[in-house]
């Protein structure tokens, strides 16, 4: 019998001919991602680091993004400790404040390659499935153990196959698709499971679309969310300087066994919202048109890439942000920001009244730069709308696509993207 992507890649990693869901295998990941939480991670293993050192200076990838630039003495001290650790142990892949959100930086730097196993102490590590990697989140303690030993355990997950067909209607995007899927499966619909995206529509999804979709796999509980490597992937990897001989793509066999198969027609997707306070609380944007908002956030690891900024800039050209709304723009990386500047998107957005934030996680996790007040409501392109997420328990977060957020910023109320 054939194997799924997850079965195949975990069998390879464990040196076995085959594995079955539920089996536990020991693996040595290609990379371990950590971010500002590196300070807490190395704090757990101070004496052991002195005694044994890091297992491999190429394993750790560290990106300072969560509270960047530092918001206070404590976070600044954390960054300082991380820089000292990087220097002392010769960590090769370190990206300081301002380079961008860890997941975007990992992808741009060619550190997430097809067929690789990557773990990260961040739940959105699943994003690299966009490039055909087996990528999943772990906790800080596990990152500490990995830093010393380089190995960990993974349970072979059952897999859901999502077949995508058709074309998006104008005004509808990958964000609306993944929110719709999460609404159908539920926030634990893929718990412990792998999700494979396949079907004739995949070849028409850009790498950025795929990134948005894979990024939100965790919002339905998925261990990984992954796309087949195709010409789109190869072309993208070529643009960042990765050659084909440097990676070894893996994909499911045709006769693999799935726990569930679902078919999504892209033509049937409408602009949607994830309403407070869970990501699977999906409503049609049209049913909430005209409802008040106080802040709009365009950016984050879900929708802070060049195509997202282009979508917003096209909508906002010659328009102004409504005076009752703060419109925050958060590019996913320095490289995205530079490209958006050279295309003129940033100038349009700032000219329309947007506030530009430095590349990083910004207000998404409520630590700084755009925290909400009680009874305020933020319309955001991020991936989580949990109560209190943006720093205030009595505020509301609604998730939407970049087009919906940009239109709404102009009108000061929830506004459905125009067709055509």
């Amino acid at each position, binding site marked *: 019998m054939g194997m799924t992507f997850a079965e195949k890649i975990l069998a390879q990693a464990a040196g076995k001919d085959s594995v079955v869901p539920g089996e536990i295998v020991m693996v040595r990941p290609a990379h371990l991602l950590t971010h500002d939480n590196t300070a*807490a991670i190395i704090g757990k293993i101070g004496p052991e680091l002195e005694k044994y050192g890091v297992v491999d200076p190429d394993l750790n990838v560290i990106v300072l993004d969560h509270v960047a630039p530092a918001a206070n003495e404590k976070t600044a001290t954390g960054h300082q400790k991380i820089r000292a650790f990087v220097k002392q142990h010769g960590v090769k892949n370190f990206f300081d404040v301002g380079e961008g959100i860890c997941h975007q930086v990992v992808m741009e730097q060619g550190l997430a390659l097809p067929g690789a196993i990557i773990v990260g102490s961040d739940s959105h590590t699943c994003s690299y499935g966009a490039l055909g990697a087996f990528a999943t989140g772990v906790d*800080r303690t596990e990152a500490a153990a990995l830093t010393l030993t380089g190995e960990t355990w993974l349970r072979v997950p059952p897999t859901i196959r999502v077949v995508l067909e058709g074309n998006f209607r104008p005004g509808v995007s990958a964000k609306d698709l993944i929110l719709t899927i999460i609404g159908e499966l539920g926030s634990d619909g893929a718990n412990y499971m792998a999700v494979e995206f396949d079907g004739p529509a995949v070849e028409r999804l850009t790498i950025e679309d795929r990134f948005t979709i894979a990024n939100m796999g965790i919002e339905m509980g998925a261990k990984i969310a992954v796309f087949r490597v195709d010409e789109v992937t190869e072309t993208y990897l070529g643009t960042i300087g990765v050659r084909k001989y440097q990676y070894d793509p893996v994909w499911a066999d045709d006769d693999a066994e799935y726990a569930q198969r679902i078919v999504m027609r892209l033509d049937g997707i409408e602009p949607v919202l994830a309403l407070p306070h869970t990501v699977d609380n999906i409503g049609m944007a049209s049913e909430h048109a005209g409802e008040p908002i106080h802040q709009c956030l365009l950016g984050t690891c879900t929708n802070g890439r060049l195509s997202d900024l282009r979508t917003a800039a096209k909508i906002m050209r010659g328009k102004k942000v409504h005076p009752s709304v703060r419109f925050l723009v958060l590019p996913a990386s320095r490289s995205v920001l530079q490209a958006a500047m050279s295309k003129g998107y940033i100038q349009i957005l700032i000219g329309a009244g947007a506030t530009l934030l430095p590349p990083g996680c910004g207000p998404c996790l*409520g630590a700084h730069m755009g925290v909400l007040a009680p009874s305020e409501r933020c319309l955001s392109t991020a991936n989580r709308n*949990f109560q209190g997420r943006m720093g205030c328990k009595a505020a509301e977060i609604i998730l939407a696509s970049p087009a919906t957020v940009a239109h709404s910023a102009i009108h000061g109320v929830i506004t459905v993207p125009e067709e055509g």
Partner: protein
Amino acid sequence: MRVWNYGDDINTDMLFPGKYTYTCGTLEEIKPHLLEDLDTEFAGQVQAGDLLFVGRNFGCGSSREQPALGLRGVGIAAVVGCSFARIFYRASINQGLVLLECPDAVEHFEPGMPVELRLEQGELVVGGKVFAFPPLPPEIMAISQAGGLLNYALAKLEARASS
């Protein structure tokens, strides 16, 4: 012993707000904010040996480990739930926090019922009714018995260094 009872989809922001994740890492720092946006009484009243009875998908969301570290640290004997989110489940193994996936027990439970945990026997007694829970897989049991992942990894490293 008190049983704290919560519903479905309790996420990591409710268990430990994201705004504290880069300023609170030790148990003493975590304790006052534990379950802050879910139950304001919890942090002040929880006692060692208490249990949590929860619904589906407990611990969904972020990979932050303060919820697992904090619940273990205040002495929660076990979290009994219908299901647990994956990263939280992993973090709990790594911290040595006992999670019991036992939807029948959660369904049977009503506030005020006496509850007894017999961990070694693999049994939970809720209102006089006995529920059995399956043992952990051997690989995971080894981590749990070592007192969490870090101890497990360090024992391996020391064995390698001395061989």
